């Protein structure tokens, strides 16, 4: 489904991603863990083409998305991103946040777009907030709107970049619960997270990144009980 081959990316002279190779099968849940600055966000942002890699290939749906004639806007609809800081549109209310892309990108009539949005907002438990101004929501509610907003486009892949890191502790659970419910759908999910218990429960594969390389990729059982690499053990010790 997603195949990353020899992916490299530098900022100025800082090598942030070094020859990354990853394979992600359809409808699986992958988590990426690793210490701050190891390149996790950059990797996700490359998959969504918010960053342009320096070299390597990213093959999605059998197409190299780095080809110069690749239709990026069309691709991003199918590979959607949920951000640490939610990035809800401040000028729009909850419902409009969810319908704007449906209406303007997919040209779906307002009435139908509203139905799709309300369904997804209901699924994340925010039916009563559809006309609310997004600035008045709690962090947990904001992130659930962001998830609903992504879901409206019916994506094949959702990328989560530390979806709970900006939340107060008491709101982390509601967002993790929402993400868990997605794992049952036909969606491929890649999550960068520091929530180890969650990663263990939800993932099919856990990848540990350090200093721009994927050190090892293991099933959660092995990753959290018996990782092979010394660096992985060192990192995981901090969470046990």
């Amino acid at each position: 489904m997603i195949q990353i081959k020899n992916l490299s990316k530098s900022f100025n002279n800082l090598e942030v991603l070094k020859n990354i190779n990853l394979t992600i099968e359809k409808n699986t849940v992958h988590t990426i863990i690793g210490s701050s600055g190891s390149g996790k966000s950059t990797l996700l942002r490359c998959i969504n083409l918010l960053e342009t890699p320096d070299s390597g290939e990213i093959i999605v749906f059998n197409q190299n998305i780095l080809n110069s004639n690749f239709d990026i806007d069309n691709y991003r609809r199918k590979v959607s991103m949920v951000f640490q800081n939610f990035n809800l549109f401040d000028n729009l209310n909850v419902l409009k946040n969810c319908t704007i892309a449906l209406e303007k990108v997919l040209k779906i009539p307002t009435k139908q777009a509203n139905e799709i949005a309300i369904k997804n907002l209901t699924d994340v438990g925010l039916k009563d907030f559809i006309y609310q101004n997004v600035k008045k929501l709690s962090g947990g509610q904001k992130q659930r709107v962001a998830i609903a907003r992504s879901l409206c486009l019916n994506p094949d892949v959702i990328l989560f970049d530390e979806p709970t890191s900006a939340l107060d502790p008491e709101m982390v659970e509601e967002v993790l619960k929402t993400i868990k419910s997605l794992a049952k759908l036909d969606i491929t999910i890649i999550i960068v997270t520091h929530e180890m218990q969650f990663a263990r429960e939800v993932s099919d594969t856990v990848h540990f990144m350090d200093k721009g390389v994927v050190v090892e990729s293991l099933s959660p059982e092995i990753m959290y009980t018996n990782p092979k690499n010394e660096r992985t053990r060192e990192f995981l010790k901090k969470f046990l």
Partner: protein
Amino acid sequence: MILILEKYWLSFVYGTIITLFIALSGTLIGLIFGLITSLIKNIEAEKNSSYIKKIILKISNFIIDTYITIFRGTPMMVQAMIIYYGVYSLGFEWSKIIAAIVIVSINTGAYMAEIIRGGLQSIDKGQNEAARSLGMSQKQSLIYILMPQAIKNSFPAIGNEFIVNIKDTSVLNVIGVIELYFQSSSIAGSSYKIVETFTITALIYLFITFTVSRILNYFEKKLGFIETSFPSSQTNEKGLVKNI
């Protein structure tokens, strides 16, 4: 003063209306110029854009930069002379009112472009990233997400341009536009009461600018009100429309 008012009130009223008309239409058209120019300036060539698109963007960016530099760097009075008589010398006889609106619009457009640019810069870049990650093009992101926020953020500065324009239309008397200052000059000329006449003129300007800034303040508060304290229970379809 009363005598002057009694005799010439119609001229004052006429001048005031012309001044307001030029300032208002000039500010609005200028705002549109500013929006269009900053829209074009913010469409970046992307990796997959065609060569022609890249070249067109380069050229239009250069033209816009030049336009902004020239019109912010020279007095409107001078611009008025060049534009009005320039067009005239090409053989077009155009009305002074139209000329005035064109001049104020172009001049204001240059300032508005800078105001909107500042408004855009103050927006968190996550807003654009979120829009792009939902498949919006750069243009769609600008039109539906970034520009509305930029306009809202720069509302005080945009309003201020209107007030500045109310006062600055007075320089258009150099091309003979019959606005408030021009009328006052004529009145002063025929009544020989310069100080009295221009005191009335000053009071009229003051009254307009004061009233306008009050009105703008009201709208500013209202914009802020929607943002900070819209009660959810009362937000209905209408609230939604207002919010957009």
